[in-house]
């Protein structure tokens, strides 16, 4: 039997999870640069969406529906920004297989000697960094349109919520990324449908209290609900980390369950795809 160590002892090899995960971050960054026109489209869409929804608060004030528009403006502004962030993270991670099918590289990527956990973590790191950059740009462009008071905001607590929440959202993204592996023709559409449901149940543009009781039940199992709660607490109410231990604790629990759980589900789905020959099929 050929000793794998003999093979891997050749010069120039730096096998380590960080280097291997970085390969995916670097590749996605190169793709992002090459598809810059699409990035511009999503940025413009994100800005327009943020403005269009936040102007509803202004309309509510003019129509006499609310007397305190500034609170509603901030509520909707944060909702749209957090959703821009979450959807970017979910898109990037859930398209882990779809990207490879689009480009026709799925076989070469999946036969590389990289553990699937490292592969998915690399894609998740890029997804989070990409989403932070895009959301920061949308924020910088959209905020001057509204006279919002951010003086009370606790930015440190907001950053902690984003970091902790991103882990569980990454787990959700990996879980939805399984669908294109199982269903080459329809899996991507199914992933987008799950994203749409997350938007509905997580209280992005309204409090989850307004949902019918049967639908509200689902909001408890969406990590986005707690991420939004935490961000709004930190920015609107100026809550510190100690005030946000409730949503932060739940997000940590989600992360502990979702990340290893989704990687395990992905591994089972990949084995099924290898059994049935789905890896070679182009979507």
């Amino acid at each position: 039997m050929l000793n794998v160590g003999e093979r891997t002892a050749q010069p120039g090899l730096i096998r380590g999870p960080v280097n291997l995960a970085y390969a995916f971050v670097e590749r996605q960054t190169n793709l992002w640069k090459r598809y810059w026109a699409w990035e511009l489209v999503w940025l413009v869409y994100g800005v327009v969406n943020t403005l269009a929804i936040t102007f509803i608060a202004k309309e509510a004030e003019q129509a006499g529906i609310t007397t305190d528009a500034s609170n509603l403006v901030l509520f909707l502004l944060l909702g749209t920004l957090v959703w821009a962030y979450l959807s970017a993270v979910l898109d990037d991670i859930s398209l882990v297989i779809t990207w490879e099918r689009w480009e026709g590289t799925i076989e070469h990527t999946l036969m590389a000697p990289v553990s699937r956990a490292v592969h998915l973590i690399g894609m998740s790191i890029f997804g989070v960094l990409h989403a932070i950059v895009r959301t920061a740009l949308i924020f910088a462009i959209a905020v001057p349109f509204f006279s919002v008071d951010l003086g009370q905001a606790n930015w440190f607590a907001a950053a902690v919520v984003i970091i902790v929440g991103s882990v569980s959202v990454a787990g959700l993204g990996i879980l939805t990324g399984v669908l294109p592996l199982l269903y080459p023709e329809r899996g991507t559409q199914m992933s987008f449908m799950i994203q749409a449901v997350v938007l509905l149940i997580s209280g992005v543009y309204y409090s989850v209290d307004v949902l019918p009781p049967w639908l509200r039940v689902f909001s408890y199992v969406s990590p986005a609900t707690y991420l939004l709660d935490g961000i709004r607490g930190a920015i609107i109410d100026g809550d510190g980390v100690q005030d946000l231990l409730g949503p932060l604790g739940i997000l940590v629990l989600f992360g502990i369950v979702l990340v290893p759980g989704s990687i395990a589900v992905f591994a089972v789905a990949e084995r099924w795809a290898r059994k049935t020959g789905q890896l070679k099929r182009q979507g």
Partner: protein
Amino acid sequence: MTTPAIETRHVNKYFGGGFDYRRLLPIGKPFDRLRATGARKRPAHVLRDISFGAQRGEIYGVLGANGSGKSTLVRILSTLLLPDSGEARIFGHDVVRESSEVRSLINRVSADPSFFRNMSAVENLLFFGRVYGLSPAEIKRRLPGILARLGFEWERAQEPMSHLSRGQQQKMAVARSFLTSPVLMLLDEPTTGLDPRSKRDVQAFVRQVRAEHDSTILLTTHDMEEAELLCDRIAFIAGGRIVAEGTPFELRERVARGRPVEEITMETVFMELTGKRIEEDEDVKEEVLAAL
């Protein structure tokens, strides 16, 4: 005794014919027709009892028509597909149970170059080199030499893959595979669709690599001339079954029956040993697609 580079024993693979809800329909007039439609979906048997071995340093050819099972065999050896029965080993490592070890020993070139189209050739190779554990510095050190030997201009390596011709893309695919210095190279119809010049460049590179390095190569092709030019031993595959195996000379000798061996073409050998022309397995491919 040395461990064979490739060893397969009684490998079988089926496609399609999975669970069909129509088979659960009750027996009775309204459902009979629907149930019968479900029952018609039989699995396609694409690899039948495949057993062969290739030794370290050998170029082993698998020759067969489109749809004969060559690519399915390569996918099993490259851990992308699981066999339904039998076992396959690469340098003693089981492709199912020890897939991580196998992956670090192999690389593959397929008929489709498979690159990120809008990324440059260098960016693509940086990624594919990195996932095999190579540092960017090492990739940049190895790459110019490999590209020069393939007759590829370095300046063009900075351009997006979509700007390159089919032949240039395929040369990059060959470069990607040899960049990682695999001990087993799986070449799955690497010259299909190439112009004669590119084909010669790739073939010359394969011969050169074999002469200079301790690599084993499995080459699948339906090009008789290429198989004879490059391979130490050849297996003929037809209908998912290996029907003959040997050196090009032994295969010719087997059908000579008194004729001078050197006058017998490999095409004649293939037809006499398989009972088919090289184009005839296309119907099997259709059957597989229907079963999926």
